[in-house]
């Protein structure tokens, strides 16, 4: 099984440690993982802004780079969801779309494909899970609070494998943080209001860290926390899972 | 082409999909004790539900629930305390000022405390204009859910019927629940024939 690692543009630039943790963890678990160069972005920022056609060349390029891998794994729920749900439509008639079926967020991959049951790390901290919208409602990382279906959370399952972690969740467990890509700058006041309330609800759990599958949400919340001088740390789930590696 | 034809022809021209009617066979909620569920839901929606015992008289019960009522309106022969009959008023406005109206319900729905009342009086205003509404309902007419109710519901020749679930209410001011908006301020369901 050959895995192609996709490190999204903003993770590459702002949170490279998330990419590193992903790589280390997959290698530790015995996965044949490669990082093909020349990858840049999945195209979601333009698409959410209303210019999905500008993402088509990126999608075609993505297909080329990741040809031949069995799975494409990314530490970003929204990027994984974007590729999965939109690439077939964007590439219709132009390019055979294979990555849609192969694309997975790293939490999905660890939980559903590798079915990880043991992890070596210790992370003796209380963490509050940020259930990113695309992760919950498009990738089914956890049961959406609106639906009457059995409750589940893949991230809780994975975090329970790390010694010392105490997992909590905020009230309004999967309400949007307000990032939304370009929404964050087209409607900055609403975006910051949503983010502030989300941040405060995480802080109210008494957690030391806010953790989630999507660094974009964390980047937005972190920006607000720093501006408002609210002391709480941010960490991607995969970094906790890779603790000690 | 008149508007009807124009609208229908536009619909036919524009329809871009075709879906079949689904089979409506849902395993809807059923209660072990639908009578108790009906009683509980009636209370939840702000009404009273009273199972009439063998030795109880409905007229005494109505008096005890509404001791200050003066104008009691009903066309049901068993309501001997009625002071007025909604079938003999000259106009529906004459029913304004009714303290208690006593009417018959035909189906009780356990899942939501609804009672189906097909119009059985000359002026349907009686169901809505009274300060308080008393509904007589037979215990053996309580069903589990709306699917069962809609399967068996009947109309009278008047061509009007209503499901009533508790008293009228509103939360339009600051989401504060106020019982008694434009219609009944209180509803009592007297459940008869319970064995």
């Amino acid at each position, binding site marked *: 099984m050959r895995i192609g690692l996709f490190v999204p*543009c903003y993770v590459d630039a702002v949170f490279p440690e998330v990419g*590193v943790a992903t790589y280390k963890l997959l290698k530790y678990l015995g996965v044949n993982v490669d990082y093909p160069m020349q990858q840049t972005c999945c195209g979601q920022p333009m698409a959410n802004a209303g210019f999905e056609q500008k993402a088509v060349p990126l999608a075609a390029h993505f297909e080329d780079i990741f040809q031949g891998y069995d799975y494409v794994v990314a530490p970003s729920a929204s990027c994984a969801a974007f590729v999965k749900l939109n690439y077939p439509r964007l590439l219709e008639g132009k390019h055979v779309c294979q990555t849609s079926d192969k694309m997975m967020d790293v939490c999905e991959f660890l939980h559903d494909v590798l079915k990880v049951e043991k992890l070596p790390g210790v992370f003796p901290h209380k963490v509050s899970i940020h259930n990113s919208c695309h992760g919950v409602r498009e990738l089914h990382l956890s049961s959406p609070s*609106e639906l009457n279906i059995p409750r589940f959370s893949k991230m809780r399952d994975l975090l329970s494998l790390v010694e010392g972690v105490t997992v909590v969740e905020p009230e309004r467990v999967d309400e949007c943080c307000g990032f939304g890509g370009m929404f*964050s700058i087209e409607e900055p006041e609403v975006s910051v209001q949503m983010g502030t309330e989300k941040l405060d609800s995480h802080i109210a759990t008494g957690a030391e860290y806010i953790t989630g599958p999507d660094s974009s949400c964390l980047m937005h919340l972190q920006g607000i926390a720093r501006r408002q001088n609210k002391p709480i740390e941010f960490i991607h789930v995969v970094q906790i899972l890779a603790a000690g590696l | 082409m008149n508007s009807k034809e124009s609208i*229908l022809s536009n619909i036919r021209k524009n*329809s871009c999909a075709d879906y079949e009617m689904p089979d409506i066979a849902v395993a809807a909620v059923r209660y072990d004790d639908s009578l108790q569920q009906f009683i509980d839901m009636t209370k*939840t929606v702000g009404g009273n539900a009273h199972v009439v015992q063998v030795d109880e008289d409905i007229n005494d019960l109505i008096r005890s629930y509404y001791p200050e009522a003066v104008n009691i309106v009903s066309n049901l022969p068993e309501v001997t305390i009625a002071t007025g009959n909604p079938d003999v008023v000259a106009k529906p406005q004459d029913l304004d000022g009714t303290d208690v109206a006593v009417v018959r319900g035909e189906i009780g729905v356990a899942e939501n405390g609804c009672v189906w009342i097909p119009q059985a009086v000359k002026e349907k205003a009686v169901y809505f204009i009274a300060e308080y509404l008393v509904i007589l309902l037979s215990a053996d007419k309580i069903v589990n859910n709306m699917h069962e109710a809609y399967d068996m519901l009947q109309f009278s020749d008047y061509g009007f019927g209503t499901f009533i679930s508790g008293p009228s209410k509103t939360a*339009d001011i*600051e989401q504060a629940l106020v019982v008694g908006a434009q219609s009944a301020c209180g509803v009592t369901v007297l459940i008869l024939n319970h064995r």
Partner: protein
Amino acid sequence: MSTKHTKAASAFLSNKSRAQFLNQSIWYVREKRDKVAMQLAEWEELRELSSSIKRHTVTHLDTYLEQFASRAEANGVIVHWAKDADEHNKIVYDILQQHGAKKLVKSKSMLTEECHLNNYLINKGIDVVETDLGERILQLMQVAPSHIVMPAIHLKRQQVGKLFEDKLGSEPGNSDPTYLTRVARLHLRNEFMTADAGLTGANFGVAATGDVVVCTNEGNADMSTSLPPLHIVSMGIEKVIPDYRSLAVFTRLLARSATGQPSTTYTSHFRKARPGCEMHIVLVDNGRSDILANPQHWETLKCLRCGACMNTCPVYRRSGGYSYTYFIPGPIGINLGMLRSPRAYSDNVSACSLCCSCDNVCPAKINLSEQIYSWRQGLDAIHKADPMKKIISSGLKYLYGHPTFYYMGLKYAPLINRLPRNILYNRLNAWGKGRELPTFARKSFSEMWKKGIVR
């Protein structure tokens, strides 16, 4: 880079206590919906059935409308067909005129808002009295509703108290909701008693029987139609449903989704006029039959007008109904507004973070967020996309499409961290309005990989 919605929402949020009040009040309704939805094991099955029944009905709309109209006519009800809002208004007025009706009491109908019926009739000398408490409050205030089910949710009791003092002579300083509701009851009772005609909307029109079904909590639709001798129903053509078996599904979903109640207090079926009286139904198209031809958006015709989507919408709850330029706000409003006129209502398309919560609460399973995304793609073609968004998107396309420049960008990005604050955080920096910029890593992942540091 901001739309009318952005600006209005910003103004709305500047009053912090009002904003908090609205968010809490409406979230509470979402919680109530959740509670009752979780009580029914068959909830998701009901939603799926509701969606399927509506899809079937809407794609066979001509058949069901004809059946509905002929049944209603067989029951002695007079059925009219209105191609558009103007025709609807004219028909309603003509009916009132024929009966010499001067005072009309009406229960809530978003369709009549859509058609601007009230102003039309008032200009022709008809006294129009809204009888839903929330709508009556707004009518007396001469403002529009801010939500389709809880129209006055944005108001505080003191505002209502002052209004009733001025207009209804209530006790000065008394803003207790129960007291105010009693004042309204007496006032509206008088209106019901003296009305010449009653107008209702229709939650459902049952094709198999010709019934018009109206759901209320207050009983105002029934009071409006039990006293005056004339009943007019304004019904959108998409409100028709096949039969009672379908109706059972919808009545189980509607109130639970809208307000978290197991049922509205009154679910009334109007099949015939009262003896000696008249009942009319005005079936209204006003663009609905055109929507059928739109492959991406025809499913908005499934809408039950329950308001669940706006209750869950995190953007609606933080901007309020008045921030939207269309009379229906929230996720369904964004879509309906664009269907009404993309040029006039494109400002609302920004009011969405694409969180998809609305899709999950919609009792008819309309793909609301997907449709909003789709409208966004079409904005540039009608010259309604913000130029800044286009510039940024083109810039990103170039940057990401040329890895050499991308890697160069990554190399120099950390310099941004060192720029002085007054350069970084200026009026042009929309991200900086409330957030610190992220810190660019000194070594990006791709650079570390290239240098063999990632092991």
